[in-house]
């Protein structure tokens, strides 16, 4: 952690600070929450035309929340949470009462949800300042944010490259210093893969660890909301705000939030003696970018130097995880997205007074969904249809059992498992849009944890030597043992920062983004 000394507020760019640092300044009343919020709103106005991390910003409500935090502190009240007064960006798949929630889809353009998701409700109760809603692949289906109906987000490290997906907006907002914290959702890697390719921290908590109430469902048995941040400590602080049992989500685990902040403090001592780390044999090798593998091997060496005991672990079923995922997720999606029927909310097309409900429904869904969503709905419809069910959906569920068994066996011998988060660094915009299978491969390493439900995170592990782009180290932990991976990630982060003379994210190229935006506005994306 870098917050050993208080920064000088007078000559510090507030958008460059970590959430924990901002909270300290606000709570000690050296800087107001309004100043912090305004600094981020100004930064968004400056760079978001080029980055396009946000689909919607809400300056008025953000400043009102910040003013309330300042007033409460001035009145001598204790902060509502360790992050009170700190801005946060929320992926546009979580409902926000009275604020647009589109899921990156024309189907929900202009929809104002009548209720807050539990995650958003907890953010508000904790005094966090919601800046706006971030861009995403439509209904969270994609690995590049190019499937957003409202145009792609760009990677702040290289504006011609993808920021990952589906939560590319949340991670890009962090890397572009538009927000110190963000919320993502991870069905097959949509928090971790964007985290890896933007050089930020992304955490998928244990399935059931964070409420799904108000999270627009894509694949209900896999979807999991979680924290995105620029430091491991910030992610842990946000995790404790949003985590915990929720009676409104019947799959929510009725147990206390794992002690993730305490684990980060323990890890920050840089001592991993007694921790057993397993390197997953099946998640490296052929098909992986050489620079990604070199970064990964260096990260494993660092863990060993910190005292961890490193062994290789074989999880043979992991090689079938991608296949199982692309049957299970589309199957659940074909069922979940049946709710978009043009009747009660959202888009309605072709209702001319003559057409039947079924015709209007079909025309609306054709107009409202993009190609990837249609592909997955049809794929799921196929996998669930009689005659194919056993061969596809049924077999995929059996593979899910095998993957769980592999995790269970591995965690008998090790405390955490590690792998690269992604097989490659950020690819170029447009490079994979016409090849769905190539796009799906971006989630190769992240999917097993979704299928088994255990916790996993991505922490920056340097830049790939061949292209200078960020690489992520994935750390996976057993169900409800989220604190284990936080401890390892925090220790690793401290070691890297010490070796490199500061956090890698501060070295994001500061190109003339407004100039880039002018050039790009000529090009249809």
């Amino acid at each position, binding site marked *: 952690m870098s917050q050993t000394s208080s920064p000088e507020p007078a000559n510090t760019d507030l958008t460059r600070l970590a959430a924990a640092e901002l909270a300290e300044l606000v709570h000690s009343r050296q800087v107001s929450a309004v100043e912090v919020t305004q600094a981020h709103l100004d930064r968004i106005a400056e760079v978001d035309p080029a980055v396009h991390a946000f689909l919607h910003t809400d300056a008025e409500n953000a400043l009102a929340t910040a003013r309330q935090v300042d007033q409460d502190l001035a009145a001598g009240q204790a902060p509502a949470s360790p992050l009170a007064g700190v801005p946060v960006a929320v992926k546009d798949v979580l409902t926000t009462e009275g604020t647009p929630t589109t899921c990156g889809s024309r189907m929900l353009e202009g929809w104002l949800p009548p209720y807050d998701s539990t995650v958003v409700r907890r953010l508000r109760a904790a005094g966090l300042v919601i800046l706006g809603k971030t861009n995403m692949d439509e209904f969270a289906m994609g690995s590049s944010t190019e499937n957003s109906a409202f145009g792609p987000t760009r990677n702040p490290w290289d504006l011609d490259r993808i920021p990952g997906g589906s939560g590319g907006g949340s991670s890009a907002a962090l890397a572009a210093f538009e927000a110190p914290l963000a919320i993502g959702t991870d069905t097959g890697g949509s928090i971790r893969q964007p985290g890896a390719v933007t050089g930020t921290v992304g955490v998928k908590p244990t399935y059931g660890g964070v409420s799904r109430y108000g999270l627009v469902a894509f694949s209900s048995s896999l979807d999991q909301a979680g924290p995105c941040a620029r430091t491991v400590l910030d992610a842990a602080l946000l995790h404790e705000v949003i985590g915990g049992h929720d009676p409104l989500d019947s799959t929510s685990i009725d147990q206390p939030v794992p002690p993730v902040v305490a684990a980060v403090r323990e890890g920050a001592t840089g001592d991993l003696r007694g921790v057993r780390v397993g390197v997953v044999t099946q998640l490296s090798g052929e098909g992986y970018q050489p620079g990604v593998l070199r970064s990964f091997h260096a990260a494993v060496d660092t863990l060993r130097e910190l005292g961890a005991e490193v062994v290789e672990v074989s999880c043979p*079923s992991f090689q079938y995880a991608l*296949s199982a995922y*692309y049957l299970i997720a589309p199957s659940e999606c074909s069922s979940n997205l049946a709710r978009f029927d043009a009747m*009660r909310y959202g888009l309605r097309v072709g209702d001319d007074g003559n057409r039947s*409900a079924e015709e209007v429904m079909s025309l609306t869904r054709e107009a409202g969904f993009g190609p990837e969503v*249609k*592909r997955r709905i049809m*794929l799921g419809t196929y996998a669930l249809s009689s005659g194919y069910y056993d061969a596809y959906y049924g077999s995929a569920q059996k593979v899910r059992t095998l993957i*769980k068994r592999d995790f269970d066996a591995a965690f008998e011998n090790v405390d955490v498992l590690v792998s690269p988060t992604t097989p490659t660094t950020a690819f170029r915009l447009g490079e994979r849009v016409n090849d769905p*299978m190539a796009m799906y491969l971006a989630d190769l390493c992240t999917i097993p944890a979704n299928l088994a439900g255990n916790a996993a995170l991505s922490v920056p592990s340097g830049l790939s030597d061949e292209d200078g782009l960020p690489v992520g180290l994935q750390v996976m932990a057993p169900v409800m043992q989220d604190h284990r991976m936080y401890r390892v990630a925090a220790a690793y982060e401290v070691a890297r920062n010490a070796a490199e003379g500061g956090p890698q994210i501060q070295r994001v190229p500061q190109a003339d983004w407004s100039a880039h935006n002018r050039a790009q506005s000529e090009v249809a994306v």
Partner: protein
Amino acid sequence: MPNISRDEVAHLARLARLAVTDEELDLFAGQLDAILEAVAAVGDVATDDIPPTSHAVPLTNVFRADEVRPGLGQQQALAGAPFPEEGRFRVPRILGEEA
């Protein structure tokens, strides 16, 4: 097993209530075929003795107390409706000539 025909894709689109275009049928037929061919690998290891897992966290019968709680009012419930009418959802006809 794959080799999904254009007619099959048209059938799937009907089942999924998607009024896809002819161009989309051509595009999706090829892509769905490629995807299904790749994911069919699950059949290689899914033997009869393995039980299926439908959910990562096996929970059964999660109940909450049956208590009255505030819900959405009529106005809120209709706020997002495409064509509300007289405090109701107006929908296209569901019965028709189509036998």
